[in-house]
């Protein structure tokens, strides 16, 4: 028996939050592989307890600066279930458009600032910009358009302030929408070019077997509503989530691992597209078809292409939703506060996000449970690495192995800030 070779990636770069990878290889095999998340716990589920329902939307946004709208929409859904509120169709449309704006911002950020430098051999977007100025500028422009719609509808793009139970605090004016929609229409060819470009990236070729989990809606591509389905036939509503999905603790990480029927599974753009390809609007499906890449795909690296598909889809959907949008009479419907339990499940940029709240009669939070996408993908990321690294070649030099492992992890766009907020932790008192 030879001495083991230890490879560490002490700090993962170009991911949101703080994580690391420990890998131990002995006799040509992986002996230990641990994705450690050491993002400090911020205990959101605990700090929600005892706060009034009216603080929830502002609080949960702060779990993640990259996808605050996902948290706000999911919480609004759960609270509206408790209060028996049904929002008006025009409000649902506006929320859907706002949520797509966040996908544009988050996906464009991931593709250009975090992932593409890997495939093209750079260590940052600013380095990549010297050789690929047009591609980088196109990406930043699309990202900016997502941010501007968020700011129009929510006041600002990070932690917007307008989403409330029953609707919005303020509705946009027609002329504000028109000005931005014009730019969205002009951006369609750019989003198409982006999709074509991601398909030309030299993506590692690899197939893996994994269950995919996503929402599914009877008519449209899922984002703010739908049932939870899997590639293996699961079909449940949000309330049934705990019966099928289990969070398990692992000692080396500050995030829990979530399993579906005791197996790792995939959530996020690739899982969504694999399960909802038939919900793409025809113009998006046509552009995708021209790339020659087919979905469902078993290659995890096709995640970046799926993200580009969803950016193009988001532009089409925003235009469709807002082109003829008419403000409803009231920006929010009235309701009476009451106690109860409510669930929310929506498609955050990185995959399904599940919330459950229990309120007392006065509307104070008794208990909150939040299961973000990254904790769901964590077990899948480890499983991917266990398969991908031997195929890449464990005998390769450390630096190569490390770079490839980072690329595999980054491909999931892990949002480590999100993943830790429900940590069970051990406390050490300050001296």
């Amino acid at each position, binding site marked *: 028996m030879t001495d083991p070779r230890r490879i560490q990636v002490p700090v993962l770069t170009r991911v949101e939050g703080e994580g690391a990878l420990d890998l131990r290889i002995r006799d040509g095999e992986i002996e230990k592989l641990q994705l450690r998340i050491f993002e400090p716990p911020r205990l959101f589920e605990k700090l929600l307890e005892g706060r009034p329902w009216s603080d929830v939307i502002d609080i949960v946004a702060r779990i993640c600066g990259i996808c605050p709208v996902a948290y706000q929409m999911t919480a609004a859904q759960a609270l509206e279930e408790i209060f028996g509120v049904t929002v008006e169709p025009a409000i649902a449309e506006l929320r859907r458009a706002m949520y797509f704006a966040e996908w544009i911002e988050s996906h464009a950020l991931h593709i250009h600032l975090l992932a593409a430098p890997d495939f093209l051999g750079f260590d940052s977007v600013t380095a990549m910009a010297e050789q690929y100025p047009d591609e980088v500028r196109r990406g930043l422009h699309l990202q900016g358009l997502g941010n501007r719609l968020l700011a129009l509808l929510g*006041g600002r793009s990070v932690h917007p*302030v307008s989403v409330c139970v029953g609707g919005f605090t303020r509705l946009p004016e027609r002329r504000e929408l028109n000005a931005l929609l014009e730019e969205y229409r002009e951006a369609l060819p750019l989003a198409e070019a982006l999709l074509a470009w991601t398909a030309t990236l030299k993506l590692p070729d690899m197939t893996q077997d994994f269950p995919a989990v996503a929402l599914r809606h009877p008519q449209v591509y899922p984002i703010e509503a739908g049932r939870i389905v899997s590639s293996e036939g699961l079909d449940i509503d949000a309330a049934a989530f705990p019966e099928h999905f289990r969070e398990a603790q692992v000692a080396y990480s*500050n995030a829990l691992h979530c399993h579906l029927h005791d197996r790792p599974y995939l959530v996020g753009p690739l899982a969504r597209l694999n399960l909802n390809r038939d919900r793409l609007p025809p113009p998006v499906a046509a552009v995708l078809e021209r790339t020659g890449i087919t979905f469902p795909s078993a290659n995890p690296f096709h995640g970046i292409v799926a993200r580009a598909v969803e950016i193009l889809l988001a532009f089409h959907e925003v235009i469709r939703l807002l082109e003829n949008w008419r403000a409803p009479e009231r920006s929010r419907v009235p309701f009476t506060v009451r106690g109860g339990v409510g669930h929310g499940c929506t498609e955050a940029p990185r995959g399904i996000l599940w919330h459950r709240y229990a309120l007392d009669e006065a509307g104070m939070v008794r208990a909150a449970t939040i299961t973000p996408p990254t904790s769901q993908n964590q077990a899948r990321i480890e499983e991917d690495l266990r398969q991908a690294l031997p195929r890449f070649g464990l005998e390769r030099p450390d630096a190569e192995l490390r770079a490839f492992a980072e690329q595999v992890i980054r491909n999931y766009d892990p949002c480590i800030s999100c993943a830790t907020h429900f940590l069970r932790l051990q406390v050490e008192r300050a001296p």
Partner: protein
Amino acid sequence: MSAKPRIAVHKFASCDGCQLAFLNAGEDLLTLAELVEIVHFPEAGPLDPAAKVDLAFVEGSVSTPEEAERIRAIRRHSRVLATLGACATAGGLQALRNFANAGEWLAGVYATPETVAALDTATPIREHVKVDFELWGCPVNGEQVLQAVRDVLFGVSPAIPDEKVCLDCKRRGNPCVLVTRGEPCMGPVTRTGCGALCPAMNRGCYACFGPAENPNTAAFANRLEGLGLLPDEVARRYHFITSQAPAFRAAGKKEAKDETP
């Protein structure tokens, strides 16, 4: 070797939202990368936490023993050190644990011996090292951040506005949330920097930029109680995102105390 000024962006307990002031800056990010050398900014790629820099931005509050060590090392390597947003400047939401009966908050949760150690408080950077200037907001205002970088590059110390949200509200011609809607709004005690964003969106301010200069927190607490808020409701307004700013910490504690006989 480049002679460009060197910049670092460090992360502590946070949501990553303030770093987006750079990552969402679009063209300005590319311009910045030409003007300065970004030597440490893990989310964007560069990793060199021990590098000597001219200007270090710190996002997040100190909530683990490792972070308490790390911030001291960063201070030693940084000529100018600035906080980036409410977490670093005033604790952020995670600092609400500072008011909790620590045992009570943590007793009900499962603990595994191997998990990372956490302090039972989350504290602003200022309580650990000397800070040269502080940017407020949850998140920071991106314009303010880029202006601060320019100021430091020109050798002037950034002027951070500390007047009240109310003044910006008047300038924008927003109807007053307190007066016309009779809803609580923290504008009269909160520092501007957002341009009175919430009142412009028809809702009350929740003080994400922290206290303004000379906030009359006691008189304002009475005003809120006049609207029908109970003392503990007033306390929760001070103890929210910027609870570790001394003026708000004290004001909230006073209200919470008034309530217990």
